[in-house]
């Protein structure tokens, strides 16, 4: 699957590509408006990560052009502007999701994964990872076809881990994912610890492998 990263800040673009590129994704990138326009017209992408402020034009114009061409590429807007109006406008114009800078790369990966899943959903809306099966519509989890009773946060956490498998996710990124920007409780990592402990316990009890590893207290890794 191909992902296009349109971001004029080269360092950030580097990071995004380095993080996304794995066995699943091929990452392409452009740094300005004109070359981005050219790329989107020539090729199809599973997902486009689109910055709003670009040299030579606005990312939103690229989005409009995509819609005019009836292209079905998923679009994730990344922007430094975080007001509701900007988000609503971008989503109305046809973006699939909106992420405010500065973001955590695992968050970006999770959003890109979610967009691609939604776009390529062929009848069954589920994520399968070895013995784990997540039903995205019902928001429930099965281990070897046995249902596991997870809380809302535990479910979100598991999906987040699966979207970032084999990657170390920092506690900060997890906190932000679970509670967002506004809930200013992310400093207290005890909350995350409890959630992860409970999630692991429930999965192991249901007969799943213990995929979640703690990495020196710095973060966690879902390794397969």
């Amino acid at each position: 699957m191909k992902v296009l990263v349109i971001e004029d800040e080269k360092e950030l673009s580097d990071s995004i590509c380095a993080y996304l590129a794995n066995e699943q994704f091929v990452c392409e990138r452009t740094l300005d408006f004109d070359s981005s326009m050219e790329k989107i017209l020539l090729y199809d992408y599973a997902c486009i990560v689109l910055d709003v402020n670009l040299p030579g034009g606005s990312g939103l114009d690229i989005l409009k052009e995509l819609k005019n061409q009836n292209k079905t590429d998923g679009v994730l807007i990344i922007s430094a502007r975080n007001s509701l109006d900007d988000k609503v406008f971008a989503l109305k114009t046809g973006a699939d999701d909106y992420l405010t800078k500065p973001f955590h790369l695992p968050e970006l990966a999770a959003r890109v994964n979610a967009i691609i899943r939604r776009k390529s959903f062929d009848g069954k809306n589920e994520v399968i990872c070895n013995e784990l099966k997540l039903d995205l519509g019902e928001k429930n989890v099965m281990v070897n076809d046995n249902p596991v009773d997870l809380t809302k946060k535990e479910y979100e956490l598991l999906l987040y881990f699966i979207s970032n498998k084999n990657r170390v996710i920092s506690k900060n990124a997890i906190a932000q994912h679970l509670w967002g920007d506004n809930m200013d409780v992310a400093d207290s990592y005890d909350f995350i610890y409890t959630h992860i402990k409970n999630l692991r316990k429930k999965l192991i009890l249901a007969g799943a492998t213990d995929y979640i590893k703690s990495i020196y207290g710095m973060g966690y890794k879902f390794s397969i």
Partner: protein
Amino acid sequence: MKLFTKYSRINLLTTIIIFLLSATAFYFVIRYILINQVDNDLKIEEREIETYAKEHGTLPEPIPVKDQKISYALSDHDFKTRRFTTDHVEGEKDSFRILQFGITVKGNIYVATVAKSLEGTDALTRSILLISLATILLILATSLIVNRVVLKKLWQPFYSSLDALRNFRVDKKQSLNFPSTQIDEFTFMNQTIRKTTNQAQQEYSLLKEFTENASHEMQTPLAIIRSKLDLLIQDENLSEEQSKTMQSAYSAIEKLSRLNQSLLLLAKIENNQYADTTSINLKDKITEKLNAFHELWQNQNISVSSALQDARVNLNSELTDILLNNLLSNATRHNVSNGSINIILKETELEISNSSSEKELNSQQMFLRFFSQDKKRPYNGLGLPIIKQICDVSGLTIRYFFSNDQHKFTLSW
């Protein structure tokens, strides 16, 4: 004390002293002149008696006149001096001016006493005194009234300017309207005030712009640092020591981006970017938040009780979210395990209280930016200022109470 009162007091005191002094002096001068007059009359009488005695060789028969009495007495010694006195005479209620002089008739020495009533003089001085007192009072009263009316009118521009200045807000884009005045001092004062306030407004908006721009400019480098850290921790060869270092860097970045977000939010609120309001059902909003925080509280064993009535308030939707998030986050962060949070929503009031091991907040300073009672806490000191700022722009009144280790915030509208 009002300027006018102070001025009147000084004015009144000096006027009274001057009038009293001049009235006293006036009284004595008039009395002196009048008595001098009487004395001259008495001297004429003396001369008449002496002439009569010389011509007739006998003393004139005293004719009883109402305001004049003459009497003679034999003296055994030579009485040469002439003596004026003022005294009361038996049987008369008025005081008399008395002249005594010696007179020799046929070898006999007599002391003649001529007394003239001072009734007229006394009456005159009394009325003069009364008139001057009345004048003093009249002048004082008039000057008081005139001063009051005139001064009030004169100072009117001053009070108008003060009023305009009282309504002045450095964060509002309004120029001050002063009534025009012909008094140079006030014109000068108004000019100075206008210049100073304009300058303050200008500098304030520059500062605000700077904060917003600085925060915006910081977003990209922060995003880069964060993304680099996210990549760096993927390295499988990181040692435990390095991981700890990474964690510190993460926390610092987290703090910085949170701080940045808060500053940006404050700048935006001040810039009126959240001006549009809708009628918000607070009960629904709070229920939504209770669901969002539910697991967090469960993990910490915090018991939450809520009593929610319907309440509709005109607020900005985004700000309401931030406000409730901040209030509930505070109640959670500063709580103790097995603690409690109470939420009561009434028609015109929202009350959120929580248990805590922390001592009472300083209500004078709690809403100041970057004020923190406990410097060791990891919070950036902008949580309460943001709450306060949102309340201020939304027309909510926030109050803080502390009792029995319970911190309580009450919002009313």
